[in-house]
């Protein structure tokens, strides 16, 4: 796959998008069994990664100060 990045470096939305793509490609068929198996395994990992991110997420807040700096604020 052309965009197979390291799982941990993927943002949630990237992982979700790739997962959607994989499901669509599997639905299309036209793949060899080996390709399909590889996609399937990748898809499983992406789904696990997404689930993990969902359960661990906390809102990250930054604010621009009058000095033009960006400071982090506590989560609500």
């Amino acid at each position, binding site marked *: 796959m052309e965009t197979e990045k390291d799982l941990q470096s993927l*943002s949630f939305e990237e992982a979700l998008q790739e997962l959607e793509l994989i499901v669509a490609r599997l639905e299309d068929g036209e793949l060899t069994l080996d390709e*399909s198996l590889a996609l399937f395994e990748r*898809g499983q990992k992406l789904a696990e990664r997404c689930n993990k*991110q*969902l359960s661990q*997420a906390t*809102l990250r807040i930054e*604010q621009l100060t009058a000095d033009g700096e960006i400071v982090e604020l506590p989560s609500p």
Partner: protein
Amino acid sequence: MGLFVSEANQFSQSTWSVSELTAYIREMFAIDYRLQDVTVGGEISNFTRARSGHLYFTLKDAGAQIKCVMWRSAAERLFFEPGEGDAVLANGRISVYEAGGVYQLYAERLQPAGRGNLAVAFEQLKQRLADEGLFDPEHKKPIPLTPHKIGIVTSADAAALRDILNVLNRRYPLVEVLIAPTLVQGAEAPPQIVRALQWLDGRTDIDTIIVARGGGSIEDLWAFNDERVARAIFAAQHPVITGVGHETDFTIADFVADRRAPTPSAAAELATPDIEEIRPLLAGYQAMLQSEMQDLIRQKQWQVQTLVRALSHLSPQGRLDNNRQRLDVTLARLDRAMNHRLAQEQGRLAVAVAGLTAVSPLATLSRGYAIVRLRENGRVVRSISHVASGDSLTVQVSDGQFDVRVGD
């Protein structure tokens, strides 16, 4: 009444100092409740904005003028930029500036003359921008479904921001937030909002920008009817969602935004998916992965089986089996033919043997005759001329033979 008391006083009255008199005059204004909350209409002249932020100007009409001052605290709440020549309504109290010896209007609020003018200005700007195409649907950018980072243009310490953050935290805590704080009301608000918007829009890590302000009067929300703000929203590369005021408030910013939300909280909802809707989506994808894979495996298995069947028809083993069977059949036929032939021959042999028996000398021999042969050459002796004395002869009788010698 110190200094002049002891002087000869031709007015036969007690005298006041200027300060005393001025204080008294000031008191006169103060006790007239009508002058403590008065609204006056006039045209602005001699307008100055001091470095301190206070505004000084004169209101006048054809016949009179009155000095006015507006302290910074009130000036900051202005929803428009007053200027020379503007017809305005000013509300405040009348009092005396003792050091200057002038009475003046201490204005708390200022608005363009005639409340209708706001609506007219609003409609005029709305029409003009609509004619320019700023509200056209084809300019509306889609809002990313799963944003990575959301920029927020709003007041840093307002309830609106807290509402937005709470909604984001509940719905989609995966998102990051970058706040560009601004004033959201007053004459200074529009340029600040524009700057904040442009700063966020210039960043590459932002997916969506929310421009928000909590509820308020039409004057409070006026910064969002500012043409500069509208144009900045239109020019933004990133999609902009407005959430200004309450459900029923529509501002120019709302019309030009890519999406208008009725409130700041609603803007946060429009900007993000709900995590509780993503979970089942993910589960659905996982199930689809599984079922696609199972389908595929079943399909491949079926293909393999079909091929195996096809192969078995075509394999040399089949032909071998075929030939082996032909061979068996042929061999069987051969067997049958041979047996038949053998039986035939045996029959013929039996007939021949029977014929033979009829002419066999053995029958004669058994009656006591013998066959005599020369031993030398096996010739049958049929005449005495065939033998000479001393010849060896073989005598065959029915159950065997023996040798004899011819005597003299």
